[in-house]
């Protein structure tokens, strides 16, 4: 029996849009040249690349010369943080400030730098999933090589006070990086005059293909290279460019920015319906601020059940979602993000993230609100913890 799939894992990755795909196809077929070559097929590829750079710059409110294409969001994070750290060390700055609930692309990079002798401060976040600004002001000073705080969290969708942090870093003459992988294409961002020095993005979170990203490096900021080799990206990031992917990313971001307001209000409506509906289930909590939140993100915990079995049962009903349980995080602990906002291990194991796209329909949300309560009830009926929870205060 073929089942219609309801895809609600758009924070993990998105479908390539028709616009992006159509923009890419010529670069996978006839315009296959190497952009560094002098003959015409190469020049056409180069033109595609530069057009995409202009599209990115326009969408982000910066200069095209500040956009550097690279392999993915993780690479952009590594480049930004390692680059800024090494540049800072030359000036005697050996402190790095980040938050405790960053993506692993940032956290593991910071851990690696700690091993090289950098001091790293991991800022706490409050119960709503917002970085504690008191701790930020205490930690950030002239000895910092870089401050790196994510624009919006990938698990709970909470939006951080980036403007305030960037302004303070500017005042303290400290480089400010933000991992905006979840924000670009979904929140309005205007880089010029923002105080942001470095910003990471990844195409596959806004309907471009996987395996293409970019780092914004503000004009005048000098970073050592992460990938050495040829003279691509004005000698700052070597490697023959993923031309089709880059062209797709330019087209996808242009489209996302053009329809952002419309998409956002549509998604927010469905998000509200979804969150309200899920919270009808007893002993359920919303993870992360209700208001300072990406328009497509819903993250809840159901007490008494475990996330992997929840996902498997949703999958049997054609619903694709994700969870922060240990069994699905691929590590031994439940999600560090959910623990950081104060959830106990038990409650973190029972979390569910549903992330919408502008293509999500009301019918799909209705179906989810029909299936999830049944699945939760079924798992709770099998759970040795449920009796006790049910009889306690909600």
């Amino acid at each position: 029996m073929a089942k219609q799939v309801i895809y609600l894992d758009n924070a993990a990755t998105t479908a390539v849009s028709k616009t992006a795909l159509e923009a890419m196809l010529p670069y996978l077929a006839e315009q296959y040249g190497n952009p560094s070559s002098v003959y015409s097929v190469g020049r056409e590829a180069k033109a595609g690349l530069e057009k995409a750079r202009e599209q990115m710059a326009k969408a982000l409110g910066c200069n095209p010369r500040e956009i550097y294409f690279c392999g993915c969001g993780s690479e952009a994070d590594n480049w930004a943080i390692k680059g800024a750290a090494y540049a800072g060390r030359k000036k005697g700055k050996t402190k790095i400030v980040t938050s405790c609930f960053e993506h692993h692309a940032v956290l593991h990079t910071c851990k690696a730098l700690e091993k090289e002798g950098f001091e790293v401060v991991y800022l706490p976040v409050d119960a709503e999933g917002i970085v504690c600004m008191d701790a930020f002001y205490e930690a950030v000073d002239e000895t910092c090589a870089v401050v790196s705080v994510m624009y919006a969290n990938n698990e709970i969708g909470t939006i951080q006070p980036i403007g305030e942090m960037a302004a303070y870093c500017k005042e303290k003459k400290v480089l400010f990086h933000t991992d905006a992988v979840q924000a670009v294409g979904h929140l309005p961002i205007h880089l010029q005059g923002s105080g942001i020095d470095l910003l990471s993005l990844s195409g596959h979170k806004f309907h471009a293909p996987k395996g293409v990203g970019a780092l914004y490096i503000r004009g005048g900021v000098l970073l050592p290279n992460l990938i050495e080799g040829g003279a691509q990206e004005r000698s700052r990031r070597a490697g023959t460019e993923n031309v089709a992917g880059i062209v797709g990313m330019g087209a996808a971001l242009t489209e996302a920015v053009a329809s952002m307001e419309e998409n956002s209000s549509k998604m927010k409506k469905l998000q509200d319906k979804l969150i309200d509906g899920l919270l009808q289930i007893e002993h359920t909590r919303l993870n992360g601020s209700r208001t300072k939140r990406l328009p497509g993100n819903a993250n809840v915990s159901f007490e008494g059940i475990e996330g992997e079995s929840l996902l498997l049962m949703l999958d049997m009903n054609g619903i694709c979602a994700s969870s922060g349980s240990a069994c699905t995080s691929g590590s031994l602990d439940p999600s560090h993000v959910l623990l950081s906002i104060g959830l106990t291990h038990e409650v973190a194991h029972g979390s569910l993230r549903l992330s919408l796209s502008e293509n999500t329909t009301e019918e799909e949300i209705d179906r989810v609100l029909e299936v999830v309560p049944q699945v939760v009830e079924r798992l709770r009926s099998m759970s040795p913890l449920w009796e006790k929870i049910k009889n306690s205060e909600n």
Partner: protein
Amino acid sequence: MYSEKVMEHFANPHNVGEIENADGVGEVGNAKCGDIMRMYLKIDNGMITDAKFKTFGCGAAIATSSMATDLVKGKSIDDALKLTNKAVIEALDGLPPVKIHCSVLAEQAIKAALRDYYVKNGIDPTPFLGEETNSCDHCDHCGH
């Protein structure tokens, strides 16, 4: 990642529930690690006439609970004492390496229920079951 057999037992687990006035009840695991198994046994004349379980945990935790209770139902206590996590894994056509600990818990839950049965009947379980084990109490799986 899971075999068809595991998915079968996960989608339609056998023996879910509780047994009122069970002759042996055993619980292992811990909520912090994300798995708890509680097993109930009905025992008549040295035979396990019924087995039920309640489990909080991942797909493999539920499937191994289902299979382990199936494997001891209708068996003598002596046979149930010989249950191994390997037998549970084989009966499920294999488990992914990271889920092996679920089969260990399932074996331990059955044995904890048998231990309870012996204790309730005034018999020292140590000769049959050795010292008490709950792999989650000193578990290197999740480090808690």
